[in-house]
């Protein structure tokens, strides 16, 4: 379970070697996740379309108790992650790093940020509001959301991020510290360990690459 994302990533690392040989210099990020093909008939001929893994529709409550859906992120590139406000271990480092990205792109409407709390018991919208303010988030570009347990943990699966309620984990929840990069078509284009400086630097680079696509 924990290996899920890693497996995908390494599979792509492999396939990108082959892709890299055929493609021209123009750099593109991989598209991550399972893919399917679909046949269509166009002008009497069969065409095969590739269907990529996409983040499905969702609806959560944000720090202002306003419903936020996938529509908010339409035609935007966004970075999503999973955290909780009283997480003592990896979250502060992950959020410190995401804050750097936020500060660089503040007021740039092409980019948004989405932090899901996995502590559906404690992290009410007002708790998230105070957290966001204290972190230094001053506009709506970075959304902090909460929702039903089933919904939050379900969407984590779609981002290929492992999350679990676990009494033995620090703070009561176990989760991965990935910052997941989503493109304008809601496809996963990268995942970076938010506690690892090198991977965070890679996120800065990849974000630029994605914006140029």
């Amino acid at each position, binding site marked *: 379970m924990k290996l899920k994302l890693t497996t995908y990533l390494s599979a792509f690392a492999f396939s990108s070697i082959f892709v890299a040989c055929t493609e021209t210099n123009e750099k593109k990020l991989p598209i991550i996740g399972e893919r399917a093909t679909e046949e269509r008939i166009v002008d009497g001929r069969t065409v095969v379309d590739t269907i990529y893994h996409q983040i499905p529709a969702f609806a959560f409550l944000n720090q202002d108790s306003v419903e936020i859906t996938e529509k908010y992120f339409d035609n935007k590139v966004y970075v999503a992650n999973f955290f909780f406000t009283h997480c*003592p271990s*990896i979250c*502060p480092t992950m959020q410190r790093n995401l804050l750097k990205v936020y500060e660089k792109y503040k007021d740039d409407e092409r980019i948004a940020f989405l932090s899901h709390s996995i502590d559906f018991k404690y992290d009410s919208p007002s708790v998230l509001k105070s957290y966001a303010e*204290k*972190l230094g988030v001053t506009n709506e570009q970075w959304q902090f959301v909460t929702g039903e347990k089933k919904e939050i943990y379900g969407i984590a699966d779609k981002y290929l991020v492992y999350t679990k309620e676990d009494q033995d984990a620090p703070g009561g929840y176990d989760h991965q510290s990935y910052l997941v990069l989503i493109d304008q078509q809601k496809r996963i284009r990268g995942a970076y360990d938010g506690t690892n400086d090198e991977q965070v630097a890679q996120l800065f680079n990849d974000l630029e690459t994605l914006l140029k696509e």
Partner: protein
Amino acid sequence: MRNTLFSLAGISVLIGMLIFSCQPKVGIETAQYAVNGQKLYVTHCQSCHGPKGEGLGMLYPPLTDTTYLKENRKILPGIVKNGMNGPIKINEKNYEGNMPGNPELTNVDIAYILTYITTTFGNSTETYTQEEVKNNLVNCR
């Protein structure tokens, strides 16, 4: 094999002490405590208080308020071991949060960490000794 390990450990401690002793007025014991303290700091404190003790926004206060560290030297072991909450003023700003305790840390661990913090982020030049930790922990109950 064992000898190599020992001498490797010896060499790295020496190098560490050298680095720290380049700073003026810090004795060799203090430097050694600070080297050990840095490792513990990374594991137990850095996520919230930051690699340079800079804190994080208004969520986690910095550890760079030299006056605070000096005036509250006696309660530092209690903060590390039992955690802390309620309003405090650090570098002229008001914070109010909740720091979890670290009951698993031993007195010597706490002495290492506090020596690291008070000499690296603060302006102390002295070791925070195990005895100091022990005595101040008794008082803070």
